[in-house]
């Protein structure tokens, strides 16, 4: 080839080669500059973006602590379940298979169509919560795009309605809503952790990369309840409420030595595992939240104050004749004219006149201090959410008639739990201990209300109530000495006291020689004809205590006189 310009062919080639080389060099420099820019100037941003494409933070779920009774029987357990959620936009691509998905979910196909179509703008829509893991696995096995599982926990209450009120329940997100579940939510609830996972283009996690935060599972809670006693009390109360057609009822059993609640049951009840029909009235733990006028079941506390003041002794005579006592325009009445009786008989026969005269003889402030010392009008330390403090007006507001009616339990209100606490204080030799719904490892300190001698004298008097002469004969338990008091109170309603609606109460201690258990039985509005505390509530006390004392292996303190020879000498097996 010959160059037209006349220059030698070799020289032209040299120029073109250099030119090309320069171009390549410039290109290389540009690339290098770009590389430096990316690697050095913006590397942090780019690395972050890169990781964001495939590294994700995924939660590690932590389960809620278990609630057990005092011996470790499970009362509330969280079991894992799977919630199914969909990404509507992804699922819409395979809309034709939605009916199959609906079938696997056990849902209505049309509803699911609407749910998917109506939420196309979102990325996360629940379609079914809390499925059994096995069923949920079948849903995923359909292989649809945009269907995912989320591990959640469902609370299960093996004892059902027997412990329903005390435990309360947690909601679908495993947060406590009522009862102990609410009171100890911070203790029970776990804290979810977080981990980094590697995901592929389709968002499936391929590999766990590292842990960011360790999950903290919830701690377990050991309640003070004894499931055996709880069941027993529930069974007897339910039977009594049905038999007497009562509107409601409660039973509380306290361990006198420690103040622990061994049983707390109510009627009507509900099954916490099935909350389809929520009715507030069924869910209330009446034993702690509902107040009533205790009626004559308050008299032991009045008598205790009287003995403690030193102005009365069990043998001091009180003239209750002629069976009524006029105070201004009001009259306090007894059922029968009991005449001149001693303080012990006032309690045994439940004389309103006698109790009123004793209360009126005491200084109002002193009486108030003792009643308040028994925990009346004050919250117990149970910590139960929504607990009522009851009602005990300040002695400055008492008038003479108020002080007189107080003596037989009108004009003040208590909860079943409070009344049980007051009786437990008598049983514990005059020391009021805080009530606990949690198992205690050591006996908590108490507050002395009355002297030990006074407490003993009151217990002895209360024992005469549970005899064939007293009003609480039906509370008797074979083999044990029982001390207790009946109470029957008219219910207060708008405009005064009702004459046909009652609260029937029995409160007692067992065994009387060395009290271990304090129990209070309350039946609200029995409508079966009988309404006296001694007829309605005392049999429940007897039935519950008979089995409770046996279950707790309390030594009988009143063995029936048996023919000689029936006592067998314990022998060591050869």
């Amino acid at each position, binding site marked *: 080839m010959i160059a037209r310009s006349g220059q030698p062919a070799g020289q032209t080639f040299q120029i073109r080669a250099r030119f090309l080389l320069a171009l390549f060099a410039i290109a290389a420099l540009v690339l290098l500059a770009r590389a430096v820019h990316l690697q050095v100037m913006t590397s942090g941003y780019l690395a972050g973006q890169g990781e964001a494409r495939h590294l994700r933070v995924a939660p590690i779920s932590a389960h809620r602590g*278990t609630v057990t009774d005092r011996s470790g*029987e*499970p009362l509330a*357990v*969280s*079991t*894992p379940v799977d919630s199914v959620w969909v990404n509507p936009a992804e699922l819409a691509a395979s809309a034709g298979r939605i009916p199959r998905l609906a079938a696997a979910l056990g849902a209505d196909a049309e509803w699911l169509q609407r749910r998917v179509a109506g939420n196309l703008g979102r990325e996360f829509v629940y379609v079914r919560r809390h499925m059994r893991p096995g069923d949920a696995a079948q849903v995923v096995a359909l292989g649809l795009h945009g269907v995912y599982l989320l591990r959640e926990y469902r609370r*299960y209450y*093996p*004892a*059902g309605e*027997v412990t329903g009120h005390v435990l309360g329940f947690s909601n679908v997100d495993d947060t406590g809503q009522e009862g102990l579940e609410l009171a100890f939510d911070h203790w029970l609830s776990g804290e979810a952790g977080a*981990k980094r996972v590697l995901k592929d283009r389709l968002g499936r996690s391929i*590999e*766990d*990369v*590292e*842990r960011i935060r360790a999950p903290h599972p919830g701690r377990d809670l050991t309640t003070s309840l004894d*499931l*055996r006693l709880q*069941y*027993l009390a529930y*069974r007897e109360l339910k039977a009594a409420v049905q038999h007497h057609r009562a509107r409601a009822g409660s039973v509380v059993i306290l361990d006198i030595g420690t103040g622990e609640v061994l049983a707390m049951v109510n009627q009507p009840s509900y099954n916490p595992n099935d909350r389809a029909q929520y009715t507030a009235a069924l869910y209330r733990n009446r034993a702690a939240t509902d107040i009533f006028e205790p009626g004559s079941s308050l008299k032991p506390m009045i008598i205790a104050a009287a003995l403690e003041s030193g102005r009365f002794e069990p043998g001091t005579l009180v003239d209750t004749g002629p069976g009524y006592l006029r105070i201004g325009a009001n009259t306090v009445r007894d059922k029968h004219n009991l005449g001149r009786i001693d303080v012990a008989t006032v309690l045994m026969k439940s004389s309103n006149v006698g109790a009123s005269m004793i209360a009126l003889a005491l200084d109002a402030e002193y009486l108030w201090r003792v009643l308040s010392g028994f925990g009346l009008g004050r919250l117990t330390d149970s910590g139960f959410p929504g607990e009522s403090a009851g009602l005990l007006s300040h002695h400055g507001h008492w008038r003479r008639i108020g002080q007189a009616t107080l003596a037989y339990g009108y004009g003040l209100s208590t909860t079943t739990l409070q009344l049980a606490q007051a009786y437990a204080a008598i049983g514990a030799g005059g020391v009021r201990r805080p009530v606990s719904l949690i198992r205690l490892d050591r006996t908590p300190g108490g507050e002395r209300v009355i002297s030990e001698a006074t407490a003993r004298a009151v217990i002895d008097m209360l024992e005469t109530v549970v005899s064939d002469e007293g009003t609480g004969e039906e509370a008797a338990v*074979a*083999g044990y000495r029982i001390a207790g008091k009946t109470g029957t109170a008219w219910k207060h309603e708008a405009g005064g006291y009702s004459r046909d609606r009652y609260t029937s109460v029995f409160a007692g201690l067992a065994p009387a020689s060395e009290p271990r258990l304090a129990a209070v039985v309350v039946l609200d509005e029995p409508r079966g004809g009988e309404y006296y505390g001694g007829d309605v509530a005392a049999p429940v006390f007897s039935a519950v205590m008979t*089995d409770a004392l046996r279950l707790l292996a309390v030594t*009988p303190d009143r*063995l*029936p006189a*048996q023919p000689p020879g*029936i*006592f*067998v*000498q*314990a022998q060591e097996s050869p």
Partner: protein
Amino acid sequence: MLVLWLALAASGIACVYAKHESRKLFVELQRLEAARDELNIDWGRLQIEQSTWSTHGRVEALAREQLDMSTPGPAELVVVKP
């Protein structure tokens, strides 16, 4: 200079190796934790099952109806004194 380069390369490789090792161990940990959770779940389920079967109401009904058992009355009791 050459020594520094070599040291840098070696530390780079070591770093990658350590990272890989840590991921491997983490995966192993996750696997074991998953296994532990699975066992815990089983245990919880068995616990629930056991307590459902041993509900006092159920046991009492079985004892009374099927096994014809009853609580002995005071007259049937013999008290053994030590």
